């Protein structure tokens, strides 16, 4: 039930992100979700791509430092308190959220949020047992 996320090291240099998106575009790879954690000197780009393996490869070939990470793709009810509900579940079970970002697309009544957790396996179990809707790798890409 994990989803593969691609993380890329981006130096805070002019054109860094622009060049990266060009490479993906040239290779007909689409970004489903995207977030950047930034510091003064560099950023870490995290994204879900339509074709993870190809995307990772073309970026590596172009000289980027790339890493694949397992994350959870959660359907959060799209109303106030939706995200809070999910977080309460995790906190109550002693699982912390390392980072979180939401999808650029959404499906009807739910917002789609990517979670990276301190304990992925246990987090998955807690959410599943509590009937939180999760998307798998294929479902995420077919949106």
């Amino acid at each position, binding site marked *: 039930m994990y989803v593969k996320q691609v993380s890329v*090291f981006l*130096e805070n240099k002019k054109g860094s992100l622009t060049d990266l998106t060009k490479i993906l575009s040239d290779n007909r790879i689409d970004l489903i979700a995207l977030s950047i954690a930034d510091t003064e*000197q560099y950023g*870490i780009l995290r994204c879900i791509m339509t074709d993870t393996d190809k995307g990772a490869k073309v970026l590596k070939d172009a*000289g980027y*430092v790339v*890493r694949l*990470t397992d994350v959870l793709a959660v359907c959060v009810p799209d109303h106030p308190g939706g995200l809070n509900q999910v977080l309460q579940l995790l906190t109550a079970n002693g699982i912390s959220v390392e980072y979180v970002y939401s999808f650029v697309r959404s499906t009807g009544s739910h917002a789609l949020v990517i979670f990276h957790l301190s304990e992925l396996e246990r987090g998955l179990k807690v959410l599943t047992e509590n009937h939180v809707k999760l998307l798998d790798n294929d479902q995420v890409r077919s949106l």
Partner: protein
Amino acid sequence: MNSREFKIWDPEMECMDREQRRALQGERLKATVKRVYENVPMYRDRMKAKGVEPGDIRTVDDLKKLPFTDKPDLRDQFPYGLFAEPLEKIVRVQGSSGTTGMPIIAGYTQRDIDIWTEAMARTMTAAGADSKDIIQVAYGYGLFTGGLGAHQGAGRIGAMAVPMSSGNTTRQINMMRALGTTVLCCTPSYALHVGETIREMGIPLSEFRLKAGAFGAEPWSDNIRVRIEELLGIDALDIYGLTEITGPGVSFECLMKHGMHVNEDHFIPEIIDPDTLEPLPYGERGELVFSTITKEGMPMLRYRTHDLCRLHAEPCECGRTLVRMDRILGRTDDMLIIRGVNVFPSQVETVLTSISGATPHFLMVVERAGSADQLEIQVEVTEEMFGDTVGVMQHLQKKISENMKSTLGLTAAIKLVAPKTVPRFEGKARRVIDNRKL
């Protein structure tokens, strides 16, 4: 030639006829080689390996038969392996930091201290100082030879020594003003800083009595000399030395500023080709090598400095016949001196390899920002090093920074950069960009 314009501490030795001096050097060299062969196993073994006996060394021309000494030997023989006298006769050690953080030490008998002091007396006198002068020593006092060397020299000529050691610029300036310091001894970059601070503070030079400075322990250019002279209103003279040979006092400029006179009656200089190790004639650029011919505690035979320069034997207008060496033109290796600390790119490489498993590409960038030199180490991020969270990356950066500090002995800024940022070279990688205008 008007030698009365130039003060000379020991005219007999400093202005001696060169042929006469050469004979003296030969005698001293013979005696040193004999003593070292008898008392220092490393030299004995090396000479035997080369098939050379003390009897084969009769004149200075025979120097080239002797084996070389290099810094790793001092590390390997630490602490007392190279001492030629029993410890009871050693009255002082001085030292500098080796590249692994372990200090290199040099041992001195009382006679060695006297020789060193005489060398510094010549140095101070060449700067125009005598017993009426007030000499402010802003080199660090401690194992480092700068502070104590200058202090001893000042004492020998009967001047008033002001033992400030390094740092605390406001206090240095206040003392200079209050006491009427006439001669300043410190590194050239510190002299520059003092000059700039005086200007910033708006104090007119008329409130000082400064006339000269003896600056060394790091390389510096004529541009910097001009600037220091302008800011402080003094003659800024270059001095050269190294702990392994004695400390400051190996060579010194006179007011002609035409190169540094080597105290060659004590320290014989040679220039060699750094690749073939063959001696080169005067006037050609190569690596500077010294042999001590009067030191007792830790004599050095053919010590490779890895500094590049040229020697000139033409007599100087000051009247001295001591051979002159140029400013240091560069290094044969890639050692840098940053804030007084010797730094090798290989040390940086070692730290990075130990943290990340393989050696990432890196670049050392040295800038002079204000008074203190800054070192930035740019490290290309590799897949092994890349973590998914900012926290992981910051932790990595911190770890690199801490390990660098403990290995180099100096704080460097660590910048994580993308792959292919660091220029690639065919052949030997150039790991350093030195933007200081030296």
